[in-house]
């Protein structure tokens, strides 16, 4: 039996049990106090029609002020406590949402758009908070005010109450109906807006075609049609929204009219006093807002639940890559404060008849090779040949099938993720840098280094040949790299990513075409320095350049997910296959570049 979404909210709310209880206590007190006000008016007016001392008037005035002060204080506390709690609730939920995202694998982020996930973490979360905070608060307020005011009105004059109240439920019903209709129309309007955005996007991305074919005016007409469509749907919305408040005032006005008409008759017939008549009207006015709020609250609740379900969709996704039940030496995700120099990993890697598919699409088939600890393997192959997928399986960015990928003879599926990834220094094809300082980006895997061993950072930068660039930066290692590292050149980004991988002192180093944006001369330098670092490490290098891969202990050539050639540089040249062709071609290219 599945737990209902509402139930799933309770753990989050129960953390603020105290606040909610206290807030609701305040919430009960203030309407009860304000309910006294019409009574005060009643007595004041009745006394006035009889003639009283001014001292009595002062008493009434003072009482009004006192009620406003005390009632206002509780109202202040109510809002402060409940809404603050809802912000706390929002904070907890957002943290949990983010923590869950951190556990989801690469494939999830490839399948779901960033914008969609973000909108769940912001817009949807906000709707859920509105439900838990303001909506619940106004709902409780409505109930309490209605109960208190109604009982006092009944005490004044039951018959008059019943008649005057006839339109009030209609207010809530109208709010509800309007709310639903407005919501539906609003969704249609949003669809039109999305359609219009699509027209704009399409036209602006295709600006070259539009201009070349002189289609500016046709595009303007297309946009006009979409804009008009949006306008006409908005007109419906406007009609609904425009009718909403007047209808409210009308219904409330009818209620007031009934009170005036019947109430005054009852004053005339002596059943109630003028003061009671005024008090009755005042109660009626006090009920107006809670009735409007009630309909509004139900809409908030509905939206909040829809958003909550959308958030749960993400939070209920089981991460497909995680520590397996049988994983050895399970270790919680720890803040890695020290580089794992004592890593037990030696770094022997084996791929054993690996076949890997994304759904139906087979990306790698029957790939087998082994790298003894400390040796270097190079991978060559065209776009889409499966090189990147192959290396992504090693740190389990995707899960390889059991029994296919081994490190030191252990199935990677049996190694805890933290331990596995600590052993691998990974330089991806398109390095992702974060908008932080250069030092923070290099020390990404071991944040503590920045304080403890800043020299390690510059040493890593030196290996990656980034040190000379850094010397030219205005703030050296403290230079901000900008969102996604946009202030750096492609080559600088790649070299920063190499430094980032080297600094964690990994047993295994993976370079996924990590030098493509670096010129050949710098590449030689980096490789020379890396060689020193790589001596004790197992390395996998993906590259298009023969110069990068020629010195590897073994080279494999992938084509369409299959391993087609395997051997040392000389062996492959002699064989005269794909690799040899590539080699000849690159010799020519070099010649061309020199001309």
């Amino acid at each position, binding site marked *: 039996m599945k737990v209902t979404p509402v139930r799933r909210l309770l753990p989050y709310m129960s953390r603020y049990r105290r606040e909610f209880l206290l807030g609701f206590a305040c919430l009960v007190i203030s309407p009860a106090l304000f309910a006294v006000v019409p009574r005060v008016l009643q007595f*004041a*007016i009745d006394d*006035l029609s009889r003639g009283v001392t*001014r001292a009595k*008037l002062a008493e*009434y*005035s003072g009482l*009004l*002020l006192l009620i*406003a002060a005390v009632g206002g204080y509780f*109202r*202040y506390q109510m809002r402060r406590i409940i809404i603050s709690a809802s912000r706390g609730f929002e904070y907890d939920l957002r*943290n949990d949402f*983010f923590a869950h*995202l*951190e*556990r989801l694998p*690469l494939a999830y982020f490839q399948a779901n758009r*960033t914008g969609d*996930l*973000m909108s769940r973490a912001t817009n949807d979360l906000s709707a859920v908070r509105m439900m838990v905070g303001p909506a619940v608060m106004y709902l409780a307020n409505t109930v309490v005010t209605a109960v208190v005011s109604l009982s006092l009105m009944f005490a004044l004059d039951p018959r008059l109450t019943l008649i005057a109240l006839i339109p009030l439920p209609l207010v809530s019903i109208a709010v509800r109906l309007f709310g639903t209709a407005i919501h539906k129309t609003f969704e249609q309007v949003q669809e039109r*807006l999305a359609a*219009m955005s699509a027209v704009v996007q*399409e036209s*602006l991305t295709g*600006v*070259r*075609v*539009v201009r*070349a*074919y002189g*289609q*500016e005016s*046709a*595009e303007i007409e297309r946009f006009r049609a979409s*804009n008009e469509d949006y306008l006409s749907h908005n*007109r419906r919305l406007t009609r609904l*929204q*425009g*009718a909403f*408040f*007047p209808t409210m005032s*009308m219904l409330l*006005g009818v209620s007031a*009219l009934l009170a*005036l*008409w019947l109430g*005054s008759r009852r004053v*005339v017939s002596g059943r109630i006093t003028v003061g009671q008549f005024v008090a009755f009207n005042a109660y009626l*006015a006090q009920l107006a807002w809670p009735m409007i709020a009630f309909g509004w609250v139900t809409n908030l609740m509905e939206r909040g639940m829809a958003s909550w379900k959308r958030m749960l969709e993400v939070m209920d996704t089981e991460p497909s890559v995680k520590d397996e039940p049988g994983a050895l030496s399970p270790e919680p995700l720890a803040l*890695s404060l020290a580089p794992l120099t004592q890593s037990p990993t030696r770094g022997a890697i084996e791929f054993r008849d690996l076949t890997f598919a994304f759904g139906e699409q087979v990306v790698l088939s029957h790939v087998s090779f082994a790298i003894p600890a400390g040796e270097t393997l190079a991978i060559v192959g065209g776009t889409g040949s499966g090189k990147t997928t192959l290396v992504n399986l090693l740190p389990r960015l995707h899960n390889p099938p059991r029994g296919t990928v081994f490190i030191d003879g252990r199935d990677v599926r049996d190694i805890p993720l933290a331990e596995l990834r600590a052993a691998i220094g990974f330089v991806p094809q398109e390095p*992702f840098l*974060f*908008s932080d300082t250069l030092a923070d980006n290099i020390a990404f*895997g071991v944040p503590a280094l920045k304080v403890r061993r800043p020299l390690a950072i510059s040493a890593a930068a030196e290996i990656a040949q980034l040190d000379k660039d850094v010397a030219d930066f205005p703030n050296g290692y403290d230079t901000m790299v900008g*969102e996604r590292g946009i202030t750096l050149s492609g080559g600088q980004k790649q070299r920063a990513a190499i430094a980032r991988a080297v600094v964690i002192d990994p047993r295994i180093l993976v370079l996924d075409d990590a030098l493509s944006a670096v010129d050949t001369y710098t590449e030689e330098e980096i490789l020379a320095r890396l060689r020193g670092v790589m001596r004790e490490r197992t390395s996998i290098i993906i590259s298009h350049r023969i110069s990068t891969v020629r010195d590897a202990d073994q080279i494999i050539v992938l084509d369409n997910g299959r391993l087609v050639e395997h051997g040392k540089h000389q062996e492959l040249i002699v064989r005269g296959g*794909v690799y040899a*062709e590539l080699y000849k*071609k690159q010799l*020519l290219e070099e010649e061309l570049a020199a001309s």
Partner: protein
Amino acid sequence: MSFHEEEVLGKAYDARLMRRLLGYLRPYRLWVAVALLALMADALLQLTPPYLVGIAIDRYISVKDLNGLRGIAALYLAVLVGAFSLEYAQTYMMQMMGQRIMFDMRMQIYRHLQRLDLAFYDRNPVGRLMTRVTTDVDVINDLFTSGVVAAFGDMFMLAGIMGRLLWMDWRLALITFSVLPLIVGVAQWFRRNVRDSYRKVRTWIARINAFLNEHINGMPTVQLFRREAFNFARFDDINARHRDANVDQIFYYAVFYPAIEFVSAIASALIIWYGGGFVLRGSLTLGSLVAFLLYSGRFFRPISDMSEKFNTLQAAMASSERIFQLLDTPVAIQSPNLEPRALSLEPRVPGREPRAPGHIVFDDVSFAYAAEPVLRNVSFDVRPGERVGIVGATGAGKSTLISLLLRFYDVTGGRILIDGIDSRRMDLRELRSLFGLVLQDVHLFSGTIAGNIRLGNEAIDDARVLQAARAVHADQFIEKLPGGYGAPVAERGATLSVGQKQLLSFARALAFDPRVLILDEATSSVDTETELLIRDALRVLMAGRTTLAIAHRLSTIQDMDKILVFHKGKLREAGSHQELLGLRGIYYKLFQLQYKAANSPVGANR
């Protein structure tokens, strides 16, 4: 997208921006006038109920006149109905006007976007421009829908109430007004503090958005480097600050409403104390006192509303500033004889106009992009009917040639002559209508297949669409689609294969029957069958037309009249295939490279 930038808030009220915004009201002057009249009449009607209650008490209840009461009730009902109609008419008109203005504004922005040059598009990501057309305009619309305009209207009511109170009893009115400074003080305090705390909240939410955006995109890196716990701690920090900023803001709201109520209670207390005294002395009727009490309740609403709507006003100002900035961006490239013609709605009828021969001359053309030289002193000419191939490595400046020819950018040195006229002195539409552009990355629009062939040109009828498709062999796959030529094309042509898209773009170019064909040959590989279709289609397309083809595969241009070889921004070699091979220069090496690559499945992308 641009989370940072969009969150920045400027001044809440800027007279210059406001004047310009009000300019958009001009076409709707009549509407504005009627809506304002309705607003005022409505405000007056809203004033009557307390007055009627007062009269009921004084004139009828006290003397037990039931007939009079009936009259009052009838009047009350009439007021309700009248107020309902006026309020509805007024809000409807206001909001519709808002919608119309948004429509106008969107059209204006979009028209301007259609005129801005390509360099502008290089500087501004499409996402940002979309925000201008959609979100920013909607934010301004909030002025109409969220009641800022209505709140201005409430000011009429305020004035009306004040007048009414003065007329009923000026002494008690002045006493009631004495709380006004207090309420203004509270509102000021609230506004100032909420503005600051609102800014803080916006800043933190922008930080949350930026952090999420960055870390969702970079999540694999985070996981590879086991940064989950560390980043969680950072997120937690931002998240907590956002919460705290919100909690600070709640304080002001939590104080504001009770404070307003308290001031209102002071007014009631004053009315009872002084007004009660007047009643006792007989200088005020009981009914008037009740009316005073009822009025004082409505007195404060406009002021507190205004304070609350402040953020909307501020956001609208920020959005309008961004929109005006876009609208004020000058159009760098336009026809010399200026606007209206360049965008005249007259569709060009292909093949029915006297045709320029289309003699193209590049005369010492240089082009630098952002101070980076791309082309240097390039001179060549293309005679009418000639077929010219352009080759060179990536970054040699081949695509730039096309952009300059179509005047997507203007040359920074030298000139381009079309039939002896500097292209900068030609009408843009006329210039571009000479060319048929076939880009390697085919851009399709959502709509139908036929729509993608004729684009928006109504002069190209169905017969012509059919003919063009048939000529380039696109008809074979089109007729197999459900719906044929009317088959829907999904966003960006997602359902079509690369080869099919290519054939469609050929049909498009052929339907427009250009004088000069410009081909940017596709690099992506297609299956052999499609490849053969494409080659044949190309032959049809080039027949009898001046052709400029950027080739990535040399095989396609071997039989061209002339081949231009570009290298690092310079024209290095020119001549026929055989001549160039004989030179044993760059072309020769490129040719060898291609020849080798053709036998190697690996190097295809290098």
